[in-house]
């Protein structure tokens, strides 16, 4: 039993997780926030100076002595724009740097995680969604880190600093303003909590709409041919409107938090100003510092909440980042990682493998990634051996577990029970990289990367020489193609310029260049036309000579030459032997051969 599925520790964590990640660029954020405070300080001084001058002139009406009394102030005014410009640029550079750093880290971590997950994760998810998460999703975090987050901290700190300043001017104004301070983060929190499920359904809907559109688009020809296109269009249209409705709901929720924020900020500012002014009358207005303080109160009480209002401006974009983060964290949290076993064996020149594979009482079942219900077992207490240099064929109906065995030998999945041994070593104790170095796998459809033939082969080893590559291509039956087009032939997106047979041969060339101890051919010709099939099997038989080989095919003619044939049924081996032995046995194998012969003759 595997208990590693679905232990959703906290689940995709949203904003708090994003905060935690910010610590990776803590220094930059801290410096940026300090500079933001410094910038605010300059604004305060600027306003104070202007208020002071206005008061002085009102009380003295002495315009002529203005420049001599306020020399420092005028010099300061002269430099203010310049200082402000440099501070703005510097702050924005710092936060951008921090956000870039985090985004680079995330993208790296995301792909690393995909490399380490059980292969089932990627085979069962939409690659388009993952690409979207790792590119656009992470880009959407830019505003979150570069603008929203620094602003958030700043708007927490700044009112406290302003509060202290206001205390020195007018206590009652300061007290009224500071009342609003806890109200604002509280309103953000409330919206966060209340909107959690809404955000999740929004985000689900978002990727849903994209996926459904893509699905209908890719199958559009089919839909037109069967006349289902109109029905599907209407369904899709409903999806679009559903998405619109949920978007409006999310938006209303977010806007409401801004509404509370704005009302508190402006309302309290209004009250504070009125309270401040009403403490004076036309007689005591002429006392020193009264007029200047009142001007400061008017201009700064709105500044008091300015950081928060700015935060509101980034809210929309910041929220997009939080939303996008769900998809990212979902991948980072995806659980079916291969287990890390302690006591890994160290291999070197003195200790090398020989390719004797043994399955001992191996049981395996696929885990449903979405819920914890156990699927039916694929392999049940399986025992068999592949000896060094032997070619072994696996046959059986679809679903009998043939390909699963290949995936277990390469350790794309971990088994539930039993042990798989490589020369007597438990494969989970063999370092993964070392294990996979020993195996070449050719499946039913070889994936061709965008690029040249050479690029596609060099994924095995970047240092391969042209000569080595050409030799491998010869063996794989690609001589003609290389002769005609050359190794630098651009194969197009997804190898679109190659035929199915050529793609498979490229896969075989890749397998050869890997120089493994074991070859696995898993339905290597099942998507290929008859003409190419024969030639590819010629190549395979040539390569397999003297090498440990595991061949999986549902077409029995192809495997008759194998030294050992294992017949699988319902996750167990029911017959074992070479072609003649199995024919004599008069069991499943013979029946299969006979059935297929009828078709072959047809």
């Amino acid at each position, binding site marked *: 039993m595997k208990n590693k599925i679905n232990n959703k520790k906290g689940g995709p964590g949203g904003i708090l997780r994003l905060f935690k990640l910010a610590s990776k660029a803590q220094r930059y954020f801290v410096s940026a926030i300090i500079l933001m405070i410094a910038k605010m300080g300059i604004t305060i001084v600027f306003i104070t100076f202007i208020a002071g001058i206005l008061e002085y002139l009102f009380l003295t009406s002495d315009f002529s002595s203005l420049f001599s009394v306020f020399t420092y102030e005028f010099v300061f005014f002269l430099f203010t724009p310049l200082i402000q410009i440099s501070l703005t640029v510097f702050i924005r550079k710092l936060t951008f740097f921090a956000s870039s750093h985090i985004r680079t880290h995330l993208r790296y971590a995301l792909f690393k995680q995909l490399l380490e997950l059980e292969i089932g994760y990627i085979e069962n998810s939409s690659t388009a969604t993952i690409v979207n998460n790792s*590119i656009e999703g992470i880009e959407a975090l830019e505003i979150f880190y570069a603008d929203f987050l620094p602003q958030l901290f700043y708007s927490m700190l700044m009112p406290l600093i302003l509060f202290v300043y206001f205390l020195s001017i007018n206590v009652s104004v300061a007290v009224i303003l500071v009342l609003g301070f806890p109200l604002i983060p509280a309103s953000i929190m409330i919206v966060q909590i209340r909107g959690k499920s809404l955000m999740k359904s929004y985000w689900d809907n978002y990727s849903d709409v994209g996926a459904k559109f893509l699905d209908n688009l890719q199958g559009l020809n089919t839909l037109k041919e069967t*006349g289902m296109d109109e029905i599907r269009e209407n369904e899709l249209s409903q999806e679009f409107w559903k998405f*619109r409705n949920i978007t409006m709901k999310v938006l209303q929720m977010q806007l409401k938090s801004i509404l509370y924020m704005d009302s508190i900020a402006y309302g309290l500012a209004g009250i504070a100003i009125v309270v401040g002014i009403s403490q004076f009358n036309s007689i005591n207005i002429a006392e020193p510092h009264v007029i200047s303080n009142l001007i400061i109160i008017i201009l700064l009480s709105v500044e008091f909440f300015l950081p928060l209002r700015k935060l509101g401006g980034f809210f929309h974009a910041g929220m997009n980042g939080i939303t996008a983060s769900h998809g990212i964290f979902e991948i980072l949290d995806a659980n079916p990682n291969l287990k890390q076993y302690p006591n890994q064996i160290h291999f070197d020149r003195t200790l090398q493998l020989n390719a004797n594979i043994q399955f001992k009482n191996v049981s395996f079942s696929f885990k449903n990634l979405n819920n914890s219900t156990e699927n039916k077992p694929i392999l049940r207490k399986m025992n068999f051996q592949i000896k060094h240099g032997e070619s072994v064929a696996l046959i059986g109906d*679809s679903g009998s577990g043939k390909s699963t065995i290949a995936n277990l030998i390469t350790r794309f999945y971990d088994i539930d029970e039993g042990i798989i041994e490589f020369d007597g070593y438990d494969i989970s104790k063999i370092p993964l990289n070392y294990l996979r170095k020993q195996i070449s796998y050719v499946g039913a459809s070889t994936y061709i990367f965008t690029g040249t033939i050479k690029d596609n082969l060099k994924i095995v080893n970047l240092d391969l020489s042209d000569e080595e590559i050409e030799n491998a291509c010869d063996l794989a039956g690609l001589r003609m193609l290389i002769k005609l087009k050359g190794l630098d032939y651009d194969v197009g997106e*997804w190898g679109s310029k190659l035929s199915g047979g050529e793609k498979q041969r490229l896969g075989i060339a890749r397998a050869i260049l890997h120089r493994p101890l074991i070859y696995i051919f898993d339905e290597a010709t099942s998507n290929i036309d*008859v003409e190419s099939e024969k030639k590819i099997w010629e190549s395979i038989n040539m390569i397999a000579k003297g090498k440990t080989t595991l061949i999986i095919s549902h077409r029995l003619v192809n495997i008759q030459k194998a030294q050992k044939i294992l017949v699988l049924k319902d996750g167990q081996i029911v017959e074992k032997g070479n072609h003649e032995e199995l024919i004599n046995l008069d069991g499943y194998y013979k029946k299969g051969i006979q059935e297929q012969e009828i078709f072959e003759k047809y």
Partner: protein
Amino acid sequence: MDISKHDVVLDENILQTNSEIHINTKLKILKRLFQMVAPIKKTMFKCVMFGILGHLSSIFILSLSAMMVASLMGYKTFNFIYLGLAVIIFGFLRGILHFKEQYNGHDVAFRLLALIRNKIFHKLRNLAPAKMATKKSGDFVQMIQSDVESIETFFAHTIAPVIIGVVVPIIVVIIVGSYWIFFAVILIIAQLMIGFVLPFFSYNYGKNVGRTYRANLSKINIHTLDSLQGLKDIILYNHGDVILDQINQNSRSIIQNKGKIRKNQNTTMSFAESSLIISTLVIFFIGLYHASNSPNFSIPQLIIVVVTSYSSFGPVFSLIPLGGHLNNTIAAANRIFSLLDEVPSVKDPSKEDLVNIPIKNPGKIELNSINFRYHEGQKELLSNISLNIQTGSKIALIGPSGCGKSTLLRLIMRYWDVDSGKIKMDKVNIRNYSLQNLRSNIAIFSQDTYMFNTTIKENIRIGKYNASDDEIILVAKQANIHNFILSLPNGYDSKVGELGGKISSGEKQRIGMARTLIQKREVILLDEPTSNLDFLNEKVLLKTIYDIFSKKTVLIVSHRPSTIRDSDQVWMLKNKHVMVSTDVY
């Protein structure tokens, strides 16, 4: 997920939008976007009104407070209670007004977005498949997601702010100008600088950097997709570290692009901030000068003027980023509009030409000296071809690849119209039937079966939307796939997406065959039905075809001798002409 096989894309020219767009086109695009708002202009009007009132109230909070101070200082006597009350009321109103503005603006935007998304799919549906070649469907997904989303910026964050950014400053300038005309002049210059000049420069500079960024982003998208789809090989051949390196390189290069965009923003931001400071200082100083000279103007008024103008920059500040956004919006809208303007290659007949009767004998098909070429100027693909197909006959069409075999099948379905000559079904030109009527008599089955991301059952039901479960099971049995389906974890209710690589192409083909069978059409067109199948699967499929379609009219295109062996007639298409032969083999 295997994207490569089923990707769909339009002719290249439709997606050619990374280049510079001419200014006239840009204006046309903007006009068209405005026209889209027309039906819901009431909501837009509300948005603008609330926006103006909201901004004015935040300015009035301060101006009225300044008036209170001025009045204490002996400048006019205002009613203190009213003024104070007004300040507080404006304070609370501001939040509500802002909410109303934003809500209405987004209401307009998201309604239009749903509408545009709808239009895009509707258009693609009409264009398919004639105007589509096989390639990147990712571009269309990007279109309905990010392109449509960038238009949101226009509807929700451009139209109203621009109007507000004009109206509010005008009101403030009038107020400030009533004290002295020079205050108005300075304020106008500053507001124009921030609200118009800076966005304009950032727009011009942002054009190029934005384009490079997006081009780079889509390059990286492709690289990531490639790496994910080939993940198994990458893991097996220990290529992961190289890919991780490349991913870091990718990140660095988009950060470099983004850095340039950011730099542009930095410059405009800092210029805007200093414009605010400088204009405040200038108004302050000329105010001091005015106060020292004029008997009617003194310090209390100056306080009102300084406070009012200082607090009036909100609306124009929100215009600063628009320059950059507008680039995105126009490029995105251009892509969308070029798609929407595309004309489908075939149309339903006009009322006079329409033959609106059920087709009694659809199996009887005649081709009367037809000619066809894909594009004007290209050489002819089919030339003067005349053929007769009798009801119930099995005809094989062979010939070298690219000779036009598949095209011929699709001309019968009227994906394109022939250039000259006629195709008749049951003695009537197929152009006179409605497309729906014509196509409802024909089923086509080709080498790739597309599996929709739903259950197996629904995938078969694609052939007939109201088919019962029994019907589905029946055709699945006929197509020899019933037992396989039962072996799946959830039988007929297994979801295709969750099966991953568990379905082979042979099994997919058989599900496709079930889908073809359930349509119960009279004319069956088979386009290379076996080319992705290995020997064994080919045989299974052929047996199904000849057993079940024994009474139907079948036209089968193939390059494999084995596939066409049992047909009544073999036609050989070569050099634009057809040779009819009953015994090619």
